[in-house]
C-alpha cells in the first residue's frame, strides 16, 4: 500500500518545476538591482503615483465587483435551489456555456451594446445620461461582473444544493421564519461557497488587464495593465516582477483574511 505514495511523486516534481520555481523567478527578478545585486527599489516603486493610482483603482473596482457579484449571485443561487431543478447540470450548463464563447470576444461584444448607437447607450441616453459609457469605470466594472459572475454563482449554488431540506425544515419547526432561515441557517452553511466564490472573483478582477483594454477606451489603466506593459512594451522586467510581487502579496493577504473565517483547503478537495 505504501508504494502508492510513489504515484504522487511525478506531479510533485512537476509542481516544483512549473509552480514553485516560476514563482521564485518572480522574486528573483523583483529583488534584482541594476548590477545584479539585491534591491527593494522595484517593490517600493508601487508607492510612485503612476503605480499607486492604478493599484488603488484596481483594488476599489475589484472589491466593488466582488460585492456586486455576491449580491447578484446569492439570491440567484437561493432561487435556483428553491426551484429544486431535477437536473442541477442544467444550471451549470447555463453558466458554463458562455465560456465557450471566447472570453475576449464576449467582453468585446459589450462594445456593441455600450458604444454610441448600442442598445444600452440609447437606453441610458433616454434616461438622461449624457456622455460616453465606454471608457468609464462603470463600463470596466460591468465587464468584470459579466466575466466573473459565473465563478460566484457556481460555488454558491454548489454549496446550497448540499444543504438537506430537513435541516431547513428543522429550523422552521423550531420557529424560524424564512428570513431567519436564510440568515441563520443557509448563510452559515454556504459560507465555504461564499469564500471560494469571493476568491475566484476578487483575484482575477484585481489583476485583469484585458477588461480595461477592451472597455477602458485606452483611458483607464489598472495595475494589471501597468504590469503587462512593463513586460511587453516597456521591457522593464525587474519592475514588472516587483509590482507582480506586490500584487501577489495583496492576493495572499486577502486569502489569509478569508481563511481566517474558513478553511479553503477543505473546500477545495471536498
Amino acid at each position, binding site marked *: 500500500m505504501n508504494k502508492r505514495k510513489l504515484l*504522487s511523486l511525478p506531479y510533485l516534481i512537476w509542481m516544483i518545476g512549473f509552480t514553485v520555481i516560476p514563482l521564485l523567478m518572480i522574486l528573483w527578478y523583483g529583488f534584482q538591482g541594476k548590477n545584479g545585486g539585491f534591491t527593494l527599489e522595484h517593490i517600493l516603486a508601487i508607492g510612485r503615483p503612476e503605480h499607486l493610482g492604478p493599484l488603488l483603482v484596481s483594488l476599489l473596482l475589484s472589491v466593488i465587483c466582488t460585492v456586486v457579484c455576491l449580491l447578484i449571485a446569492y439570491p440567484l443561487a437561493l432561487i435556483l435551489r428553491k426551484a429544486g431543478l431535477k437536473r442541477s447540470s442544467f444550471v451549470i450548463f447555463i453558466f458554463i456555456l458562455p465560456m465557450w464563447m471566447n472570453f475576449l470576444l464576449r467582453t468585446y*461584444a459589450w462594445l456593441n451594446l455600450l458604444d454610441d448607437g448600442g442598445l444600452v447607450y440609447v437606453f441610458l441616453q433616454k434616461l438622461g445620461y449624457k456622455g460616453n459609457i465606454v471608457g468609464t469605470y462603470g463600463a470596466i466594472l460591468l465587464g468584470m461582473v459579466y466575466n466573473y459572475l459565473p465563478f460566484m454563482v457556481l460555488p454558491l449554488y454548489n454549496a446550497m444544493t448540499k444543504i438537506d431540506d430537513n435541516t431547513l425544515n428543522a429550523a422552521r419547526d423550531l420557529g424560524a421564519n424564512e428570513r431567519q432561515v436564510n440568515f441563520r441557517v443557509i448563510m452559515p452553511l454556504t459560507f465555504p461557497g461564499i469564500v471560494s466564490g469571493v476568491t475566484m472573483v476578487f483575484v482575477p478582477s484585481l489583476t485583469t488587464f*484585458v477588461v480595461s483594454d477592451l472597455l477602458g477606451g485606452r483611458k483607464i489603466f489598472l495595475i494589471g495593465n501597468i504590469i*503587462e506593459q512593463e513586460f511587453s512594451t516597456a521591457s522593464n522586467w525587474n519592475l514588472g516582477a516587483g509590482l507582480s510581487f506586490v500584487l*501577489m502579496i495583496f492576493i495572499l493577504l486577502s486569502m489569509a483574511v478569508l481563511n481566517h473565517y474558513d478553511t479553503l483547503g477543505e473546500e477545495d478537495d471536498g
Partner: protein
Amino acid sequence: MKKLKHMLGNAYLALVFVFLYAPIVTLIVYSFNEGRGRKWQGFSGRWYEELFHSAQIGDAVSNTLTIALLSALIATVIGVISCLGLQALRGKARNVYLALNNIPLLNSDLVTGLSLMLAFIAVGVTFGYSTVLLAHISFNVPYVIMNVMPRLRQMNQSTYEAALDLGARPVQAFFKVLVPEIMPGVISGFLMAFTMSLDDFIITHFTKGPGINTISTLIYSEIRRGIKPSMNALSTIMFISAIILLVLTNISPKGSKTEVKYI
C-alpha cells in the same frame, strides 16, 4: 403571496439570463452582418466564407483545439495518477501537496503567466507551441484533481480489495474496478480542463512565441485595428457546437450521471 414571490424569482432569473447572453446574442447577430461596422447592412454569410479561407484563423483554431485536447488529456493522466498517490499521503505531506496544487487555482492568471514566462526564459527554451502546452497542462491538473479526488474518497475502499480478493492483480483491479468508479470525476475533470484551456488568454499571451496564435491571442492582436467579423463567425460556430456537444452528452444515459463539480 407565494405566487408573487415565485414570479419575482423567475423575473430575476430571466434578468440574469439576459445579462449573460445579451452580448453573445449580439455577437451572433453581427456575425451575419454584411458590413464590418456596428451598423446593420443586411444579412450575409460572407464572414463565414472568409473564415474558411483564412489560413491564419485556421492555424489559430487548430492550435487552440489541439492544445486544449492535449493539455486536458495529459493533465487528466497526471491528475489521476497523483490522486492515487495523494490518497496514500497523510497529515502534513498531504496538506503541503494540496496547497501546492491549489496555487494555480487561487493565484492570478497574470502572475502565473508571468512566472512561467520568466521560468521558460531562464531555462532557455524557445517559445512556441510546446511552452503554451506545458503551461496549459500546469494550470489544468488542479482542475482534474479537484474533480477526481472527491470521487476517489467517496469510493468504498473495500471494492478495490474485493477485486484483489477475487483474484485480480493490482493492475487488473485498477482498470476493472477503480477506473470505472472514478470515471464520472475523470470525465468532468477532463471537460473542465478542456474548457479552461479553450477559454484561456492571459497565460497563453505570456507563454506563446511570435508566429503562433490561439484564437484568444489572435483576437487580442486585432483589438487595436478592430476585430474582424469573421471572428464573430468563428465564435458563433464554436458556441453552437458547444451547445450541441453538451446537449448530446447530457441526453445520453451514461452522460446524465456525470456531475460537474466546482470549487
